[in-house]
Each structure stands twice: as C-alpha cells, then as structure tokens.
C-alpha cells in the first residue's frame, strides 16, 4: 500500500517516513502533503519554548501524560540543534520521555534544526501537518533551547508556552524584546529553587505593562520533575485554547501563521534557486575571493547575481 493510504489508515511508520522525506525535500512527499492539506487543521498545536536546560522535555513529558489521562492523543515534535560544521546532531529529548515511547496514543519525533536559526527546523511546519493528518488531538512542538530572539515557534502554533527557570538574570531580562513577548502561558519550572517567586513576579510585572491586551498570560509555578503544578498548567493551556476558540482570534492567528508560512516558503525557494545557481557556476567562490581582496564590493556582486535571475 502506498504511503498516503497508510498514513490515512493511521500507520505510524508511514507518518514517520513521510516526515523524513519532507525533511529531505522530496517532491513526491510534498505532492502528498498538498493533496492531504484539507485534512489537516484539526490538531491543537502548542509550542513549548525556553532556554536550554529549563526543563522543556521533562515538562512536555508530564503535560503529555496529563492529556493522555483526559483520553487525548498527543504528538511531540522535539527539535535539537544541528552541528554547523558537520550537519550531524544528537537528539536527546526522548531521554526525558521514555515512559511515553510505547504508548500507542503518543507519537514522538526528534528533529535536527538543520541550519535553521529560529528554534525549529525548516521542515517542522511540515512535520506538524503530517502528525495532524495522522489524527492526533494535540501536538507539542518543543523548540531548541532558545536565547533571546528565536521566535519562529509562535508562527507555527496556536498556543505558546514559555518555560522559564529562576536565576537567569534580573528584571531587565524580562522586559527585553524577543522571546519574552511570545508566551501565551508562562511556566516557572524548578520553582522549588531559590528565586523562583522573584522570577515569577518579574514576569508578572512585565506582563502587566500590556494593559490593553485581551489575554493576560498566566504565570504558573511548576516543578516538572516532581509533577507539581502540572494540572494547573494544563488548565491554563486549556483556558488559552478556550479564549482563542471563543473569538475570531483562533482563525486570525492561523491566518497570520499561514501568511508567515507562505512568505517563508517563498524566501526558501528564492534563496535555494539563487544559491544553487551561483554555487553551480562557482561564481560565488570566485566573487568571494575578489571581495576579500577589495577588488569588488559585496553589494555589486548581489546586484550581479540577482540581476541575472530575471526575478
């Protein structure tokens, strides 16, 4: 049976293979996704992001178990960094999710970021669609550990959970632009540690600046490793989902995400077309040498390369 029918019949291996094919930009796999696109859109997608070591994987494990108790099926896409030198990666998020690996209602997929810098990989959006079509109720997307500006996750999910931990800096960190702006729900993990209350208070103060916002993100204290506060956190995530679905926010956000996705795909395609061509002609190497010797400037090279593309 072909992979498309197997996916629709709920075959795990078909879903897994289709994700790999999409990661490798296989054209047939893309054609399948085009055909099946109308069948996607049913899963509720929750992004989980935060700094490295904040406990995103452990928390994902606990949140998944809580949703399984509600009878929901769950997909997990866990992204880890790819080596900029070899293209290799060690994907270690499953270490925290061992008890889930034989649960038939859970599908976990690890992905390397493969050179993408926004906290997820280029193929993450496609992987979400595959698991959505496969028929899971919820999809968690766990990002690479982020610093201050990796905000791509918000463009791919319905709710963003920001996982923070105590001790990462003072209140000025909390009011900086970037990742702190994208959380719909905040969790202060490892909240049995010193300084947790202060961290929560700083996030609260930051959130209170946005007086006009329709949704005030809640800040929840959790200890993921001890399963403390997880039920409260699930409740907060559900409340955000209900808020989204009770208004046109949901469709607005998905439309905004779709717009971002199309722009990203256009960028990707143009980038690949131009780079493939200039690499093939060794024009780039040659030009780079001349730029380094100051015989020519980089701006003129771009004019030249792009000018010949007839864009």
């Amino acid at each position, binding site marked *: 049976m072909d992979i498309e029918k197997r996916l629709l019949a709920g075959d795990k291996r078909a879903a897994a293979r289709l994700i790999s094919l999409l990661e490798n930009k296989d054209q047939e796999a893309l054609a399948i996704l085009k055909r099946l696109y109308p069948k996607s859109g049913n899963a509720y997608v929750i992004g989980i992001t935060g700094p490295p070591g904040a406990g995103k994987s452990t928390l994902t494990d606990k949140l998944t178990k809580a949703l399984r108790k509600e009878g929901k099926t769950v997909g997990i896409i866990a992204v880890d960094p790819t080596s900029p030198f070899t293209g*290799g990666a060690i994907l270690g998020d499953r270490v925290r999710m061992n008890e889930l690996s034989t649960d038939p209602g859970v599908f976990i997929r690890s992905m390397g970021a493969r050179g993408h810098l926004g906290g997820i990989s280029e193929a993450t959006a496609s992987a979400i669609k595959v698991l959505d079509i496969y028929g899971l109720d919820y999809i968690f997307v766990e990002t690479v550990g982020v610093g201050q500006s990796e905000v791509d996750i918000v463009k791919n999910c319905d709710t963003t959970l920001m996982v923070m931990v105590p001790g990462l800096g003072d209140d000025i960190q909390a009011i900086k632009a970037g990742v702190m702006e994208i959380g719909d729900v905040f969790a202060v993990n490892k909240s049995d540690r010193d300084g947790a209350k202060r961290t929560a208070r700083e996030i609260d103060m930051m959130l209170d600046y946005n007086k006009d916002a329709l949704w005030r993100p809640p800040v929840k204290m959790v200890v993921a490793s001890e399963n403390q506060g997880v039920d409260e956190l699930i409740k907060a995530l559900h409340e955000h989902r209900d808020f989204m679905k009770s208004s046109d926010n949901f469709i607005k956000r998905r439309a905004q995400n779709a717009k971002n996705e199309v722009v990203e795909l256009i960028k990707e395609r143009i980038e690949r077309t131009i780079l493939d061509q200039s690499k093939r002609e060794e024009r780039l190497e040659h030009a780079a040498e001349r730029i380094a010797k100051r015989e020519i400037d980089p701006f003129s090279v771009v004019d030249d390369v792009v000018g010949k593309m007839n864009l």
Partner: protein
Amino acid sequence: MDKLIRVLVAKPGLDGHDRGAKVIARALRDAGMEVIYTGLRQTPEQIVSAAIQEDVDCVALSILSGAHNTLLPKVVELLEAENASDILVIGGGVIPTDDIPFLKEKGVKEIFTPGTPTQTTIDFIKANVAQ
C-alpha cells in the same frame, strides 16, 4: 539535499553505564549523522517503538550487562514484527567473541567490541544502511 543518516543509539536492559554509547553517539554526530539518544534501561519494545517513530536507518545497541543473547535478538524480532527489518541493527559493548556468531545468525549485522576505532563503526553504518 543529501539524505541524512539517522541512527538510534540505545541501551537495552539493566546496566547503568553509558559512556560508550555517548562516545559512539558523539562520533556519529561528528560523521554528519543525526543521532537519537534515548538514555538508559530501555526495553526492546521501547527501542523498537522509538526506531519506528524516528524513522531511523540504523539501531545501534550498546550493552554491557551480559544479557545480549536475549535482548539483541529480541530487538531484531520486534522490528520484523513491525515490517521494519530494513533497519540495520548493530551491537557494541562487552560481548564475548563466542557469542558473536549466534547474534549475527539472529540478524544483528555486526558486533563492535571494546577497542574498535569509531571510524570502523561509522564506515560500517554508511556502507550498510538501506538507501
């Protein structure tokens, strides 16, 4: 884009020592592979389930407990039951030479014992994964 080789590095059974598995994971990473590492004390069922969901090309099993004659063939068996016998299964760790023919007969494609240069393992995986 070239297809990246994906390898599941797993520790079946009850031993708490994963230095070797981590060294192998790191070497495969440096050889440009995507390594999924699942941690200690995995059952064959957990390993096979992860291998299917992760769509790996190779399962590399590290075992030091002495239970290799039971656990390694079990992984091969369960993969077959999932129609996934195209996934390459290899083993490593403290495995007596006398046991190797039995394991190979059971479908473990190669056994790498202590002292094997990591490059040997890398070359074997590259040459033997289904393409």
